[in-house]
């Protein structure tokens, strides 16, 4: 039984669909990256795992989210409290906005401990957690307020808070986007190390295909509310099959490669509510044929354990 098994999830905001039939599966200790641009539905999918979306405006229109075999969408408030933190924890993009500015960081970690592991909710455990996430001089740092720490250190505190509840699954939503490259490298390294040490599964949400290679075993690419391609990380990065994944990988400049012009993708990312009929990437796709604009392609197996939402893929 997989740790997380999302089946055909559909989420509406008011009358606008933002997630349209997403299925994902993550084994215990595994790492899956969910990649896509703004508005593709990746963060909404991530938040739905612990049912964190405010309803209304959000509405779970269809599907199920099985966490350790139990459907999150049918849980009672008491059951939800037990899985939030205890089974699934989150780390978000802006650590500065997620931490309480008027509480010392030690107190914030202790609060999580009291809720989930009350017997260990002491200074020793707080210091151990801060040390585990690589914060130097943790005994002193517990007394710091969030504004006294740099962005990278704040993100480490957020990760320590997430670990305090000893979750089985860590959802990291753009955990390095607000950080500098050298700090980004440190945080990715830390997440990989924690995964090895603790056997904790990670769902990495990102727009940056560059960082998935260091962490994820599998990658799912989202576009306009749907998964368009899913494969093992190496396969996907080396030989992307869906035209969108291919275009995304080709459009970014690569260090050390000489090219006069970048291969830009024409047009813009369609916003929810304005998704085109047929294949949603067709208006921007260099390979689109007339039937692409009429028929909605299905996410179909395509050799090995790959899935692609394009009937014209050459394998």
């Amino acid at each position, binding site marked *: 039984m997989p740790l997380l098994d999302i089946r055909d999830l559909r989420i509406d905001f008011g009358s606008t669909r933002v997630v349209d039939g997403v299925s994902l599966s993550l084994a215990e200790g595994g790492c899956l990256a969910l990649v896509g641009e703004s508005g593709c539905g990746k963060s909404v999918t991530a938040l739905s795992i612990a049912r964190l979306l405010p309803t209304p405006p959000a509405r779970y229109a269809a599907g199920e989210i099985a966490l350790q075999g139990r459907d999150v969408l049918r849980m009672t408030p008491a059951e939800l409290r037990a899985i939030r933190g205890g089974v699934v924890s989150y780390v978000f993009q802006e650590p500065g906005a997620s931490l309480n500015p008027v509480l010392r960081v030690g107190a914030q970690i202790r609060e999580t401990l009291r809720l989930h592991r009350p017997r260990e909710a002491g200074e020793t455990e707080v210091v151990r957690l801060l040390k585990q996430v690589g914060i130097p001089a943790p005994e002193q740092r517990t007394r710091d307020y969030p504004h006294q720490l740099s962005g990278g250190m704040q993100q480490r505190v957020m990760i320590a808070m997430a670990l305090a509840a000893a979750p089985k699954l860590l959802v990291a939503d753009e955990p390095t986007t607000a950080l500098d490259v050298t700090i980004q*490298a440190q945080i990715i390294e830390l997440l990989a190390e924690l995964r090895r040490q603790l056997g904790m599964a990670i769902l990495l949400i990102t727009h940056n295909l560059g960082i998935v290679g260091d962490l994820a075993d599998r990658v799912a690419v989202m576009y306009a509310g749907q998964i368009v391609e899913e494969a093992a990380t190496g396969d996907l990065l080396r030989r992307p099959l869906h035209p969108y994944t291919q*275009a995304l990988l080709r459009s970014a400049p690569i260090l050390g490669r000489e090219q006069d012009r970048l291969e830009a993708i024409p047009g813009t990312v369609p916003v929810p509510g304005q998704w085109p009929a047929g294949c949603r990437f067709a208006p921007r796709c260099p390979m689109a044929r007339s039937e692409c604009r009429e028929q909605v392609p299905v996410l179909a197996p395509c050799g090995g354990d790959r899935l692609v939402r394009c009937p014209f893929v050459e394998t």
Partner: protein
Amino acid sequence: MPLLDVQDLRVHLPVRGPVWSRPTVVRAVDGVSLTVEAGEAVGLVGESGCGKTTLGRAVLRLVEPTAGRIVFDGRELTKLERGALRGLRRRMQMVFQDPFNSLNPRRTVGESVGEALDIHRLAPTRAARSERIAGLLTSVGLDPAHADRYPHEFSGGQRQRIGIARALAVDPQLLVCDEPVSALDVSVQAQVINLLRDVQRERGLAYLFISHDLAVVEHFCQRIAVMYLGRVVETGPSRAVCRQPRHPYTQALLSAVPVVDPQSKRPRIILTGEVPSPLAPPPGCPFHPRCPVAEGRCRTEAPALRMGSDGRAVACHLAGD
């Protein structure tokens, strides 16, 4: 003679702490020299807080420099009075990072682009003005019929095109671009970079291109200057610097850039610690607390930026050519 010649520029900004504390200054830019030739794109890279944005703004005198000289096309900007400065400002423009906050939401696109034409009295008649606006919108790949629309009706990439059209309105020779694609979706970034290169070729524009993204800078710029804590630590042709970085900081920065292709993975130099606060920069070489190869004199003696014979310069005691 270079189009832009910055000499030993310093920008020290006052920092206000609690009322009882002594007033302090942050040395945001601390002795930077660099040149931009006509038609050349020079990249300014570094992490947040290194002073690259302040430097870009000081070049246009949007922030007042504390010391040093900025010479634009033979005239020293730092000594100009307001009126004379306005005339020169026409020849250098800025493109900002956030296309959502840099356009007035209550003005149509035509008004925003046209304002610069009015200030510098570049369109004598109404007809000439609208013709010019239409031409500018076309040149950045927008439909001239959209001049009557408001910014919220456009996507991020289109808004950045509007920002570029506004900057081009006065026919500048130098464009200072501060992270022009960082706020855009990945699939749209390439469009804007291609556009910037097209206008560079058509108009012979020079760029001071500020970015934290080394791959973008290597692609777009002919030369590159790497900044750390308010100083330039390495400069040279962008290809050479990115292939064979000489300063340990540049080496670490390049190795930290995520690589998509799992097979071309290089060993990564993970820097320990963080960028020190510019309020209390370390003595000696500003990079020594994080430097993997630092030795005794790095802690006491600040290295000067030494020019090599190959057009490259490094500020490191230990870097060979």
